């Protein structure tokens, strides 16, 4: 307990999430723009956007309650907290015993719950519509997410992320259940982050927006925090995916050299995901809202098949 390094690492990890998330989103946007034959803004554009929003005045509707003002801070706070829990650089960090994967899902659910409340709070039509849609998707995505996580937990006999990472380190898993769980997780991550087949992150078209509709009333520093938290969420889901399915490179024991190596490997993996995501999105068309249930139904099916094939084939 006297070794300060794990504590330092926790802080470094959360700070890295905080500082690198806008770059990742900027990179995704840049790659997407290039794929669409646009020049696109540089990968640093999200930083400028955030700085601009922080400098602006925050306008709050006259009938907004405390929920509306409180939500951005809560969402931002829990996202940073989640960043300290997911093993990004090393396992067995001091905050790791605080929450396992299921609690992590609950933390994301808390943030979503408050955003949905804030969308309803002001009483505009768009906010309510966005909240309703978001909760519809959440009610389908969360069971599927938990199923996918249960599948990896069954394989590794633990719900603690640190143990899962350590177990997967022991041997490469050529298992059908693992592959199914991975595909399910990718589908769910697309839905949870409002990426293309479910929601379009670049649209303010009134009939199709989901996430954007909920936060339409926000401005200034409130909007900056929610946007920033959204960017961190994308990076967190990537990191969670890496931790659950491809954790090679995460340092087993906190030590100087291995952490530097872990940082490099992590950056390479994230860059690969941030390049793969827009390529994937380019190949897909946004689904009609009532088809989203089928999309998430498939994710649920895959996750359940992962669990079943674990019992049927891998005992």
């Amino acid at each position: 307990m006297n070794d300060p390094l794990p504590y330092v690492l926790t802080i470094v990890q959360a700070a890295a999430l905080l500082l690198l998330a806008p770059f990742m989103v900027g990179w995704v946007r840049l790659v997407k723009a290039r794929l669409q034959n646009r020049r696109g803004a540089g990968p640093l554009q999200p930083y400028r956007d955030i700085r601009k929003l922080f400098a602006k005045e925050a306008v709050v509707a006259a009938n907004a309650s405390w929920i509306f003002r409180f939500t951005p801070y809560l969402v931002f706070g829990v996202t940073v907290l989640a960043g300290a829990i997911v093993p990004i650089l090393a396992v067995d960090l001091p905050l790791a015993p605080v929450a396992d994967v299921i609690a992590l899902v609950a933390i994301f659910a808390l943030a979503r719950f408050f955003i949905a409340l804030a969308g309803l709070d002001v009483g505009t039509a768009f906010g309510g519509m966005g909240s309703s849609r978001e909760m519809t998707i959440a009610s389908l995505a969360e069971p599927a997410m938990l199923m996918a996580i249960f599948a990896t937990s069954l394989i590794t006999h633990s719900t603690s992320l640190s143990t899962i990472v350590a177990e997967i380190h022991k041997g490469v898993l050529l298992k059908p259940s693992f592959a199914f769980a991975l595909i399910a997780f990718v589908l769910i991550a697309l839905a949870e982050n409002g990426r293309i087949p479910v929601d379009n992150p670049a649209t303010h078209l009134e009939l199709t927006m989901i996430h954007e509709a909920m936060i339409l009333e926000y401005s200034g520093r409130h909007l900056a925090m929610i946007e920033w938290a959204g960017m961190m969420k994308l990076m967190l889901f990537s990191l969670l995916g890496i931790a659950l399915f491809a954790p090679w490179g995460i340092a087993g024991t906190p030590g100087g050299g291995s952490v530097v190596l872990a940082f490099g490997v992590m950056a390479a993996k994230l860059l690969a995901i941030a390049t793969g995501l827009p390529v994937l999105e380019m190949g897909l068309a946004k689904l009609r809202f009532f088809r989203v249930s089928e999309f998430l139904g498939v994710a649920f099916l895959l996750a359940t098949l992962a669990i079943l094939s674990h019992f049927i084939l891998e005992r």
Partner: protein
Amino acid sequence: MSPVFLAQVIDLLSALVLLLGFGLLAQRRIYALLHLFAWQGLFLAANTAIVAYGAGVRHLYFSALMTLAMKVALIPYILHVLIRRMKIERDVETMVNVPLTLLIGIALVVLSYNVMSPIQEFSTLMTRSTLAIALATVMLGLLMMITRRHAVAQVIGFLAMENGLFFAATSATYGMPMVVELGVALDILIAALIFGVFFFQIRTTFESLDLSKMARLKEDVGE
């Protein structure tokens, strides 16, 4: 190659066969359905070939080859030609509640696992764990025949059922005797041809392959 690795590959292939069974259940477009069916046949053939190699059963190679010829090439080709001749390639089926169908499918997988697990205990073959998946594939084909209204989709469901039976034979006893297998293969081929004739008859009578219209065959007794 070590037996453990072979068993892992068999597990992976059988999981893919099951996944394709679900894909058939959820797919709306006719051509895509046909392609999924061909893929299922391909994985089945690969699985059979690996079992043949792993268990050293010579005649299973022949079964694998036959599966490849029949279910990956010939039958999809026949159906392909039929679909093109009848100009129904643009048909998109309206289906009732895909998620519900998938959930029923999952329940069927659980059921077949429960039914098969006592039998698995007796088996000493390297393929014993895939027995439940084979039964589940049969069940999914059956479910597909129940939930679909389009004649071609029902036929593909039937053929997927046969895939499952073949799979079950391979995983339970390393395949049926050669005579039986040849007989079944011939039956399937003839069935595919007869289905073709039926398709044409149904279409000339009802101008559609939607089998729910067959309700019109009822005589109006009351009037």
